[in-house]
C-alpha cells in the first residue's frame, strides 16, 4: 500500500502525492506518458530511491520506517527492470541462484533446485541454463530476470516496462509469462505501454500523468470510456503508434 508519496529531483517534482493499494493476489497496471514518474514510483516502492515524504507498507511492514533493514525488506519484493540487468558474469542459472545463496543463505543444492523450478516456470529450457546473458535473446534475458526475482518468493512483483526494450516479436513470450504468473495468483504491479496486455491481465488500470494518478478503474472502462480528456489523448496516441507499427 502506498500513501501520499512525494519525490523531487532538484526542482522537478516527479511524484506529487501518489496513493494506491495492491491487494493480495491482484494485478494492477500503471499506464501513462513517459517521463511522468512511473519508474520512479516503482523504485521508491522497492526503496531503491528514497521518497521525500509519504509512506509505503508491505502488509504490516512500513518500508519507509528508517529503523528497518531495507535490504531485508527488499528481498520480499521482486523487481523486473526494463533493461533486464542480468549479471553479465553469471550464467542464467547462476543469475537466479545468487540471490538465494547470497541473500537467503541457502545451501547450493537447494538453491539450484529452486532456480531450476523458477526457470522452468518462465519456460527457459535446460539447454539455456548455462548460457551467459550475452548469449541469450532479449526475451530470454527478461524471462531469466523474472525467474531471478521469482526465485526469492517475493510477496509482490514489480515490473518496470518489462517489454519496452524488446523487439515486438519477443514481447509476446515475456508478456505470456507475466500473465501466467498473475493467473497463478502472484500479486503484481506492472508499468507497461501494452494496451492489449493490460486489458487482459489487469484487475485495475491506473493512469499516471505528471506525478499524479489521474484516473483509475477496470480495464474496459478506462481504455474505451475514459472520463478525462488527458487519458483519452494518451490512449489515442499509443494506439496510433501501434497502428503505425503494424
Amino acid at each position, binding site marked *: 500500500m502506498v500513501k501520499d508519496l512525494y519525490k523531487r529531483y532538484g526542482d522537478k517534482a516527479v511524484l506529487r502525492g501518489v496513493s494506491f493499494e495492491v491487494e493480495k493476489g491482484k494485478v494492477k497496471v500503471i499506464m501513462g506518458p513517459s517521463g511522468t514518474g512511473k519508474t520512479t514510483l516503482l523504485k521508491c516502492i522497492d526503496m531503491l530511491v528514497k521518497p521525500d515524504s509519504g509512506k509505503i507498507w508491505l502488509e504490516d511492514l512500513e518500508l519507509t520506517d528508517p529503523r528497518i533493514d531495507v535490504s531485508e525488506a527488499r528481498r520480499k519484493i521482486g523487481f523486473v527492470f526494463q533493461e533486464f*540487468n542480468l549479471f553479465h558474469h553469471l550464467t542464467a542459472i547462476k543469475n537466479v541462484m545468487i540471490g538465494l545463496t547470497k541473500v537467503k543463505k541457502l545451501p547450493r543444492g537447494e538453491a539450484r533446485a529452486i532456480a531450476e523450478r523458477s526457470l522452468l516456470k518462465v519456460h527457459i529450457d535446460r539447454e539455456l541454463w548455462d548460457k*551467459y546473458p550475452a548469449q541469450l535473446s532479449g526475451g530470454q534475458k527478461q524471462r531469466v530476470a523474472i525467474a531471478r526475482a521469482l526465485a526469492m518468493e517475493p510477496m509482490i512483483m514489480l515490473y518496470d516496462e518489462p517489454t519496452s526494450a524488446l523487439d515486438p516479436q519477443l514481447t509476446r513470450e515475456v508478456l505470456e509469462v507475466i500473465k501466467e504468473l498473475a493467473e497463478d495468483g502472484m500479486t503484481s504491479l506492472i508499468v507497461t505501454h501494452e494496451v492489449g496486455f493490460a486489458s487482459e491481465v489487469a484487475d485495475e488500470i491506473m493512469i499516471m500523468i505528471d506525478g499524479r494518478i489521474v484516473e483509475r478503474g477496470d480495464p474496459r472502462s478506462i481504455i474505451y470510456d475514459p472520463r478525462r480528456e488527458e487519458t483519452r489523448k494518451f490512449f489515442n496516441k499509443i494506439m496510433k503508434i501501434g497502428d503505425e507499427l503494424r
Partner: protein
Amino acid sequence: MNLMTFSKYLPYIFEGSLWSLGLVLGGLGIGFAIGVTFSLVQVYGNPLLRRLISFYVWFFRGTPLIVQLFLFHWSIFPALGINSTALTTSITVLGLRSGAYQSQIFRGAIGSIEENQMLAARALGMSNWDAISSIILPQALRIAIPQISNEYSVILKDSAICFILGIMELMTRAKYAAIATGIALIPYLIAGLIYLVLTYIGTMFFNLIYLKKRIPDSVEG
C-alpha cells in the same frame, strides 16, 4: 677478455632473472591486494578515506621509484623502527607503488560497470558488501586483466631500479658482467632478450587467465 670468458657469466646473468621475477611477483601481489582494497574505498568509501588514498596515489605515481626506495629504506622504515633488509624494502616499495597504479586500474574497471548492475543486486536484497563482492568485483577484475598484464611488464622494467639498494637483479648482473669482461653490448643485449622473454611469458599467462575467465560473447570480453 673475450666472448668465451663472457659466456661463463651467462648462468650468473640468468640467475638474475629469478631475482627480477621475484621482485615483480612480490610487487604485483602486494600491489594487487592494495589496489583492490583502495579502489573499493575510493569508489564506495567515505570522503576522508578517499582523500587519503588520493594523496597516496598522487605520491606514489608522482615520485620516481628511486626516491621512494631511498625514502623508505633510509627514512621511513628506520623512523618506524622497522629493520628492513634491502630486499624487503624493494618488494614492499614496488608493492606500494604498484598498489597506487592498480587502484586506479580497478577504479576505472569498477566505473565502467553499469550502475544498473548494482541496482539489480540491491533489488535482490543484497547488502552493499554482497553486491560489491559478488557482482561488481568479479566483473571489474575481468575487465582489468589486460591492464594488470600491462602493469606486469611495467613493473618488470621498474624492478631494475632496485640495484640502487644492492639488489642483484638482471640488469645489475648484466652490468657487472660487462664491466668484468670489458664487453659492453652483449651482456645488455642478453639482459634485454631475457626481459622480452619474461614479458612474453607474463603476457601469455595473463592472456590465458583472460581467455579462461572472459565472459563468453560479451562486448568487453
